[in-house]
């Protein structure tokens, strides 16, 4: 919950740039509105061409003050039209929807220098990891100002915490990100993560294989997993964590009608208390759920 009632706002496009093949970074400015964002939330984009009536849900990649950055891939008519929108044009966009990642659970679970938070993402699951990494980094370093870029050099970190007892030292944030071929947003992740490990299906860059295969090469597994990406990947990461009894949060995707909880179009099955299975709305109750509570059909 953001504490804000959701709204739809006219927003000005500040930038809409191609950052990789068919991948665009859209920067928006909410008109006269300050908006609170939790990492893992998404916004609805309402297209100008009214023959495409449904909103397009896109995850928040980065946010600050009245700014919002989204990264999307052109996959169909809507995103293709979107890629043609020029800076200066207006677009209708919702305030952030859904519940994001439970940051306080991560922070309270993972304490100490030898601890590791793993952000596992594949493809278009990578964009929301930026805001997530930024928020986590600020939380564990106790920063109030979330616009500041933390110092990523490992030396200064160990230097600063050397004399503290282990539990007072900061955990490490490691991103494990997978792409089919072309890598994007790596530098942005490096601003906030201690380490960024890349896997590509094609082997063009980094580890040749997928995120889960790369994760399994770790000598020491992470202490907390946060994931976003294709369902099969989320399922595999969840199963890995379940086996090792590690906490995991995953961000699900589903075809949506309204995006705000009115149409019941976007259900998923969630095991509550490891017992009864309940139908939950991805848009309203999610998109982030505990990986061990998701019922992975098919």
């Amino acid at each position: 919950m953001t504490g804000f009632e959701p709204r739809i706002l006219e927003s000005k496009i500040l930038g809409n740039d191609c950052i990789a093949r068919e991948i665009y970074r859209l920067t928006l400015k909410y008109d006269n509105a300050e908006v609170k964002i939790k990492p893992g939330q998404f916004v609805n984009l309402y297209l100008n061409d009214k023959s495409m009536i449904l909103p397009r849900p896109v995850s928040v990649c980065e946010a600050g003050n009245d700014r919002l950055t989204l990264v999307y891939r052109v996959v169909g008519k809507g995103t293709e039209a979107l890629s043609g929108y020029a800076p200066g044009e207006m677009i209708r966009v919702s305030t952030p929807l859904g519940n994001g990642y439970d940051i306080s659970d991560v922070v309270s679970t993972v304490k100490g220098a030898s601890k590791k938070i793993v952000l596992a993402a594949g493809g278009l699951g990578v964009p929301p990891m930026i805001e997530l990494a930024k928020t986590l980094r600020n939380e564990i370093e106790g920063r109030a100002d979330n616009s500041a870029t933390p110092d990523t050099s490992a030396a200064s970190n160990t230097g600063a915490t050397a004399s503290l007892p282990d539990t007072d030292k900061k955990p490490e944030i490691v991103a494990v990100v997978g792409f089919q071929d072309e890598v994007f947003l790596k530098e942005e992740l490096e601003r906030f993560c201690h380490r960024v490990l890349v896997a590509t299906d094609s082997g063009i860059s980094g580890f040749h294989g997928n995120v889960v295969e790369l994760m399994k090469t770790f000598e020491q597994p992470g202490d907390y997993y946060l994931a976003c990406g294709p369902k099969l990947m989320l399922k595999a990461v969840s199963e890995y964590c379940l086996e090792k009894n590690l906490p995991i949060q995953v961000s699900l995707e589903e075809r949506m009608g309204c995006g705000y909880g009115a149409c019941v179009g976007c259900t998923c099955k969630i095991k509550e208390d490891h017992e009864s299975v309940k139908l939950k709305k991805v848009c309203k109750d999610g998109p982030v759920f505990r990986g061990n509570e998701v019922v992975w059909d098919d």
Partner: protein
Amino acid sequence: MISLGKNQKVVNSGNSDSDLDLRVTIAGVTLDNPVTTASGTFSARESGAFYDINELGAVITKGVSLEPWDGNPTPRIAEAYGGMLNAVGLQNPGVDAFIRDELPYLKGFDTKVIVNVAGKTKDEYCRAVEKLCETDADMLEINISCPNIKEGGISFGADTSMAAEITRAVKKISKKPIIMKLTPNVTDIAEIARAVEAEGADGISLINTLLGMKIDIYQKKPVLWNRMGGLSGPVVKPVAVRMVYQVRRAVKIPVIGLGGIMTGEDAVEFFMAGADVISIGTAALVDPEAPVRIKRELIHFMKNNGYRSLQEIKDALL
């Protein structure tokens, strides 16, 4: 903006124009204005986050059935040109949970509550209706687009005698006014309308969704898990207007018109075709504030074009 609970009823702001009469009485129940929400596209807490529910003439709830229904697996939603397909499959928590958890909340608003009822057999409809008759719901809307599992899954509403039979059975036990919600997937809508009127229906609402399908030609499979789904939104509006027009001329009972209403002008079109009340469905998914915006636009249209009452619009068609 904020939804108001009990004891916080506000004066209906839309009717403050004393020269405009938006009130409408159907089946003995007076609505402050003719704008209602279409079944399955409104959820009190979620929709109420965007607008003041007290502004609505009535809310029509999502379909409730005797037992809880899980609905269909996903994908349940697909887009069509100027519309959408849904195969939610009437997921709902069942009538008991609805009466316990949702109805009291809805009754806290200064609006009428019309409960939409779904069923798989005649008996299921009747038992859900019986339970709802013991509540303070204002009216019941019977969705007869549901498949009849005893008759090979054909929709009750697609067959004149089955539509009549359900109406008769429900009317026999109901203490509340009964609106029959008709499916457009029929050859002769007027015949079905006459049949349900003859069995005592207090009103008719139409249209429900048109059966449709979308195929992903690259994946070579239907987009919806259920393969087929209900088409709604602006793309269906001409069909809906035509059917409201035909039904208006076939029966005397009140008509709730819906299907693709996106603007106040669309609403006017339905009134001219003969609707007494209108419902906003898909528009509210696309623009959460649509019901109150459309009400505003309707008032604006009436003022600009010299109409003082809904009756004048209804009488205007040449």
